[in-house]
């Protein structure tokens, strides 16, 4: 017997599932997945098995169960839970594909016979060492100053108090992306739902008009801190808006003693042959490089990395995709399908 409900209708104290997933991502941090809080998103399912301490977060897309990260599980439950999950998928005629696996996960999956390849990297800044001083940041300092001189004010607010403002920004943002644009999910953060109490939302306004926001999610493990998660702004707005909001928040986090600000995963970035594991697919590795160079229509990796690199992050942390069997174009595409990209 296994359990695979979603967190859609759960809430702290209301169902065991919410507390189980939260406990798992807080406790089983050996993989150091900075995006672990994505397991708390509504619409993401949680696989558990009796007698095993941990959860697997996933969504179904077509013929695939698309897993986020590795199992968030105790060491002695990690492999048995993965085995049960794979059997659960195969029992329904489905295949498993894992995304955003960390190095720890990648090695475990490769040992189990998965084909594992680097998918991209996540990026992080050590806050106690962070400074915007120096010539490297001169241009960004100027943009931030211009944003604040334009009247930008940044406030931390409860999401439920600014639902109208968020909707206004989201609508304008999505409209600027083209007629076929769809908001991404699953491997991208969200606002609202029972997990909202753990996130922090900062909204920028100019003349009381909402112009942008950044949501931060908690990160657990040895690089605990915050994840610069969902962020959106109105188009054609003041230059440096998001940089100004994030700079303001960095000051707050530093004052609070936070150690790490994560910028999260960007596909196709930080690729390095040295990160690959034995048995990887050389074709898939080539494809990741190709998509870095020419895959903006699938995912705007270069634009996203340009923003993250403004903050002088540390060396990239490789993240992986794991195929249940040989590498598969179809399985890879279904990661993006699970994210609502198509």
């Amino acid at each position, binding site marked *: 017997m296994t359990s695979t409900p979603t967190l859609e209708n759960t809430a702290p104290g209301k169902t065991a599932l919410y507390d189980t997933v939260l406990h798992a991502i807080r406790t089983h941090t050996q993989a150091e997945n900075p995006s672990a809080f994505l397991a708390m998103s509504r619409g993401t399912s949680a696989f558990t098995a009796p007698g095993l301490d941990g959860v697997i977060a996933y969504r179904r*897309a*077509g*013929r695939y169960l698309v897993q986020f990260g590795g199992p968030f599980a105790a060491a002695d439950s990690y492999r048995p839970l993965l085995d049960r999950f794979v059997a659960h998928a195969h029992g329904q005629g489905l295949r498993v594909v894992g995304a955003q696996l960390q190095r720890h996960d990648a090695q475990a999956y490769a040992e189990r016979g998965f084909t594992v390849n680097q998918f991209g990297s996540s990026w992080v800044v050590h806050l106690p060492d962070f400074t915007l001083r120096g010539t490297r940041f001169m241009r960004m300092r100027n943009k931030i100053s211009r944003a604040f001189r334009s009247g930008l004010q940044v406030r931390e607010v409860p999401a439920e108090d600014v639902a109208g403002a968020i909707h206004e920004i989201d609508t304008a943002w999505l409209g600027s992306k083209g007629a076929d644009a769809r908001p991404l999910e699953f491997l991208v953060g969200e606002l609202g739902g029972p997990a909202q109490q753990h996130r922090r939302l900062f909204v920028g306004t100019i003349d009381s008009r909402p112009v942008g926001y950044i949501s931060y999610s908690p990160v657990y493990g040895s690089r605990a801190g915050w994840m610069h998660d969902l962020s959106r702004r109105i188009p054609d707005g003041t230059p440096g808006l998001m940089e100004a909001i994030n700079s303001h928040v960095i000051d707050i986090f530093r004052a609070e003693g936070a150690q790490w600000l994560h910028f999260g995963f960007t596909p196709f970035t930080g690729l390095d042959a040295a990160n690959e594991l034995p048995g990887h*697919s*050389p*074709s*898939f*590795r*080539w*494809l990741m490089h*190709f998509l870095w160079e020419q895959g903006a229509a*699938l995912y705007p990796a270069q634009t996203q990395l340009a923003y993250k690199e403004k903050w002088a992050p540390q060396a990239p942390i490789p993240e992986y995709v794991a195929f249940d069997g*040989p*590498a*598969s*174009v*179809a399985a*890879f*595409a*279904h990661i*993006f*399908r699970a994210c609502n990209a*198509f």
Partner: protein
Amino acid sequence: MTTDTTETTATAAPTEADALKQQLVESLMGVIGAPDDLDTARRADDVLHTLDTRLAAEPAAA
């Protein structure tokens, strides 16, 4: 700097691997366009595995 060797400046002809890479990209687009089509998925994976074999024989080309 001078050299007594004959320089070859002509563009190299597309190799079999180059053609397979092009097919791989087109296959990905095909799957995105028809994600539930099993034949499209199988053909895409066939291209990838053929290219894997080709690149494995020439690791420097990957």
